[in-house]
């Protein structure tokens, strides 16, 4: 008796397998796609390797007393006082959040709870334009407009940069970020909650404050965490408007100029066409980068967890 796959006109196993050329081509394409996806993993690995390998040389060879308790950050003279950078980073980030949290969240609440759809269609793209403005532009604006017109009226000097000026600039930069994450969080709150609240006779404001905001709280926290991470890593605004060139004396006053972690890195790398100076200057760049990388990574992971919590809840 003949086997089924040789019956003329019926399906055979060989026919179902498809032409071998086509199968080979498919396999090749899927491998190429896989390699494209792997690029990101390779990039991550390279970032981590580059940071650790150079930072390791710094940590091995540096005189640790020069990284803590000195009077400031003077990398070209071999003095790497980390508290100087950390204090400046804290101040600028704090000031940025004082600016960005109310503005960003307020804008998000208005867009999500009050604005008519037609207004939203206009207002949202405008906020997105603000999000697209390069940080050098904000740096210019902070130094030449905010400093004389705003900072000078709240106790600072108008003629030069300071941590306060830079902090406000960074804050403006993060407003759209806070607004968009907060708005997403409020959009995820089910309509039925609002309708139930309105049904009980609550006014729009009461519904917003007592129902929508508590329901979206993890997303709002996430927006702040991500914004803090963004502010910590912001380079150009602080580099231009932070009021310090390539070295900084440790200061605790936001009215003074200083260097944050990223702006210290940028100033180390700029000016000359090589990172030169005392022996470990090049490696110190990677050490500061590593500290910054670990801080922002930690914050982003925590922020992600908060965002996912909103998604899971509803």
């Amino acid at each position, binding site marked *: 008796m003949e086997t089924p796959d040789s019956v003329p006109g019926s399906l055979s196993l060989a026919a179902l397998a498809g032409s071998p050329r086509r199968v080979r081509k498919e396999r090749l394409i899927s491998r190429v796609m896989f390699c494209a996806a792997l690029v990101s993993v390779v990039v991550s690995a390279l970032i981590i390797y580059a940071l650790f390998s150079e930072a390791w040389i710094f940590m091995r060879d540096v005189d640790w007393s020069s990284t803590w308790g000195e009077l400031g950050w003077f990398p070209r003279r071999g003095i790497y006082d980390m508290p100087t950078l950390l204090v400046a980073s804290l101040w600028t980030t704090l000031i940025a959040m004082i600016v960005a949290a109310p503005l960003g969240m307020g804008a998000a609440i208005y867009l999500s709870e009050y604005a008519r759809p037609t207004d939203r269609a206009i207002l949202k793209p405008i906020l997105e334009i603000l999000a697209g403005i390069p*940080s050098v*532009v904000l740096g*210019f604006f902070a130094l030449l407009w905010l400093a004389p017109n705003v900072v000078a009226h709240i106790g600072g000097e108008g003629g030069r940069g300071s941590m306060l000026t830079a902090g406000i600039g960074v804050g403006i930069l993060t407003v759209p970020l806070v607004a968009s994450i907060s708005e997403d969080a409020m959009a995820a709150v089910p309509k039925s909650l609002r309708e139930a609240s309105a049904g009980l006779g609550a006014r729009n404001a009461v519904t917003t404050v007592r129902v929508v905001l508590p329901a979206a709280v993890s997303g709002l926290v996430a927006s702040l965490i991500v914004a803090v991470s963004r502010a910590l890593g912001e380079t150009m605004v602080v580099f231009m408007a932070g009021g310090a060139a390539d070295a900084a004396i440790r200061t605790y006053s936001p009215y003074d100029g200083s260097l944050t972690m990223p702006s210290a890195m940028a100033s180390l790398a700029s000016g000359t066409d090589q990172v030169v100076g005392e022996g470990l200057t090049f490696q110190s760049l990677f050490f500061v980068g590593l500290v910054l990388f670990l801080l922002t990574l930690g914050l982003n992971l925590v922020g992600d967890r908060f965002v996912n919590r909103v998604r899971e809840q509803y």
Partner: protein
Amino acid sequence: MTFSTIGTVARRGANGFERKRTDVAGGLFKAVILSALVVSLLVLAVLLIDTVADAWSQLSTRTWDFLNGSLRSRSIDDKLGVKQGLYGSFWIGVFVALTAFPIGVGAAIYLEEYANKSRLAAVIELVIRNLAGVPSVVYGLLGLFLFVERSTIFGFVGLGWLADATGGRSVLSAGLTLAVLVLPIVIITAQEAVRSVPSGLKEGAYGLGATKSEMVRTQILPYAAPGILTGTLLAMSRAIGEAAPLILVGAITGGLTRNPELWDTSGLREKFTALPIIIVEWVSERGRDPGFSEAAAAAIVVLLVLVLLLNMTAILLRNRFEKKRG
């Protein structure tokens, strides 16, 4: 019935029974919230107006000369201009489009169509999400390590050939560094676009006997194209505006001796500068000569026109297709 209409009905009902009571607290709350939005928009307006006003003296009298001028000192005012910066920024945009676009789209298609929710795919997604949050200076360090310095990995994998190929501190290195920087943006937006393709289209293609790659080519790519393009445009505008990685990779803040035409590829492995770098340099020189802040403002206007054109094209494209497909 939407929420707002229910609210109005409810309020009207209550007003029918009581005397009309003005909602002071509610009105105040709305005013505070609205003022947050208004302040944000005002800042944007002041920023744009102030910059354009500062730039006016340069742009109104000699727009073309400013775009074409190569000299970056004010000693000979006629030659002051941003041409060398435009050259750098233009080619950075080209490299981002040439590398981040294909790799990003390939990765997105792998993750959405080929990976089948495997554990490996979950890891890759997590990595991409975290890469998107890495500060841009850190990418600058990666560029410095990878494309500029003759580094080795674990003491035996030499990367000197990469530095040789890019020419060290060059436009090529900068472009590749920024392509790596925006890769997560391209992947994430492309993934969203691919995810939005209706499964009916995919099943239809399979039903007609298409293989997976044929389905991707004939169904997914055409349907997702606007979304993918939007993401790529946003990525390019981000790359053109970035300055921090360029400083780390070694953009030149002084004048360049060479002054290549925009299409001249011979300058790609040479020392370079870019628009954002020129802005930083001019701002820092304003102490010497206040005229530099006007020049910086003019350079900002040029940069903003480029960045906002890319951004607005992207936003309009997205809104148009969102509306069309409802």
